[in-house]
């Protein structure tokens, strides 16, 4: 694999993580991280949307009229989001999770990561690198979601993926379930990320 392609895949997951470095997609990462199951489905949905929208927009990049490019991107992203929502609603196992995520699946369309990557990368690059860039950004987002959800479900409900992990005597911490704690946790993750990766610290 050539160096540039490797950079395209690894950068969004580590040094250029959309949540912890670019601080994008915070809204949904606070809302859907109460339980791991929901976070996982949300992560997969976002990965699918970012990857495929980037791919489609990259395929169309030479034909899109410059003046209406944002509108065309929006239509493509909206289509992908609706498709994901429809598919989740149709699956017997995913129906309940789609209900639990409610509006947040639809709100993927407003997730800055999706439009940001199309505008910044897909419009100027070939389809395959664009697909990989979209997927990698989705993975970077999903990874943080899973980490936050792990702690919130563990200490907020005493379970992981719905299975009891902490002893029955554990009294669930209600603060952990509420959105502000996700923000606190996110702050801690950013702190850890920056402490670990010196390049991210301002001089």
């Amino acid at each position, binding site marked *: 694999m050539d160096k540039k392609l490797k950079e395209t895949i690894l950068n969004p997951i580590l040094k250029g993580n959309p949540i912890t470095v670019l601080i994008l997609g915070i809204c949904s990462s606070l809302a859907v991280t109460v339980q791991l199951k929901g976070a996982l489905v949300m992560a997969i949905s976002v990965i699918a949307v970012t990857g495929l929208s980037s791919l489609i927009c990259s395929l169309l990049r030479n*034909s899109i*009229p410059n003046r*209406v490019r944002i*509108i065309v991107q929006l*239509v493509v992203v909206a289509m992908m989001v609706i*498709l994901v929502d429809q598919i989740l609603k149709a699956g*017997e196992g995913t129906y309940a999770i789609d209900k639990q995520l*409610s509006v947040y699946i639809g709100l993927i369309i407003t997730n800055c990561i999706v439009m940001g990557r199309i505008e910044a990368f897909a419009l100027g690059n070939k389809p395959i690198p664009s697909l990989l860039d979209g997927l990698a950004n989705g993975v970077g987002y999903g990874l943080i979601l899973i980490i936050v959800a792990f702690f919130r479900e563990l200490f907020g409900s005493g379970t992981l993926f719905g299975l009891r992990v902490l002893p029955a005597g554990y009294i669930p911490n209600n603060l952990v379930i*509420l959105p502000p704690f996700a923000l606190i946790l996110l702050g801690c993750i950013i702190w850890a990320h920056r402490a670990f990766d010196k390049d991210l610290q301002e001089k």
Partner: protein
Amino acid sequence: MNTNSNVYTVVYTALVVVVVAAILSFTAMKLGPLQNANAKAETLRQMMSAAGVKPTDELYATRNQDILRLYAENIEQAYTIGLDGAQNGTLGTDGGRIELVDRLKPQDKAIKEGGQATLPVYVFKGGICVIPVYGVGLWGPVWGYIAFQPDGKTIAGAYFDHESETPGLGAKIKDEAWFREKFAGRQVAFGSEPLFNLSKNAETGGAANAVDAITGATMTSKGLNDALNVWFKAYEKHFTDNAKAEEE
């Protein structure tokens, strides 16, 4: 080709919209039946949970087709009534026609503003009678299914659900089994006011129609209390007429 000319822009955007619309309608058509089956199974699970056909966990672990069979085995009759309490339609007993949550919203409006209503009544084995309730919580709709004993006033069981109440607070109406279990054995005071009382310290007085509201979920509890009272009122005539008919 000049991709910035007006003609090109208009034709291009029109084309994109048509193609996207076609793709979306095609998927909606293809996936529609599956989605409806899911929504229906979900409603049946909630009704059967309220009616006590099986424990809630078991119902949620059961596949859709088995849920339909379970429903067909346990339902005795299903029909609709008007606001006057008289039967005005049948729903069949094969699970083919049930009122989904989406259909409760217009009913809620009809009850509150007066008008034509077709309120569903599901009678399960042993004369357990399940009715829906629907109202507005803090962030979105809240609804539930209440099962009545054959006497038409004692609650046999209940199940509540919501669209987007706060996790850990309002969402407890669904997540916490102890909340819905508290409704079993309570009695709706048909013929007096209030019909039901879900509020702070309501249980302290020892009234048969009272359940304590959930701490920290004031608006959700209030919305649910309204939902219960509005819908019990709509069904009041049906239940009191039935009770009278049995006495005679």
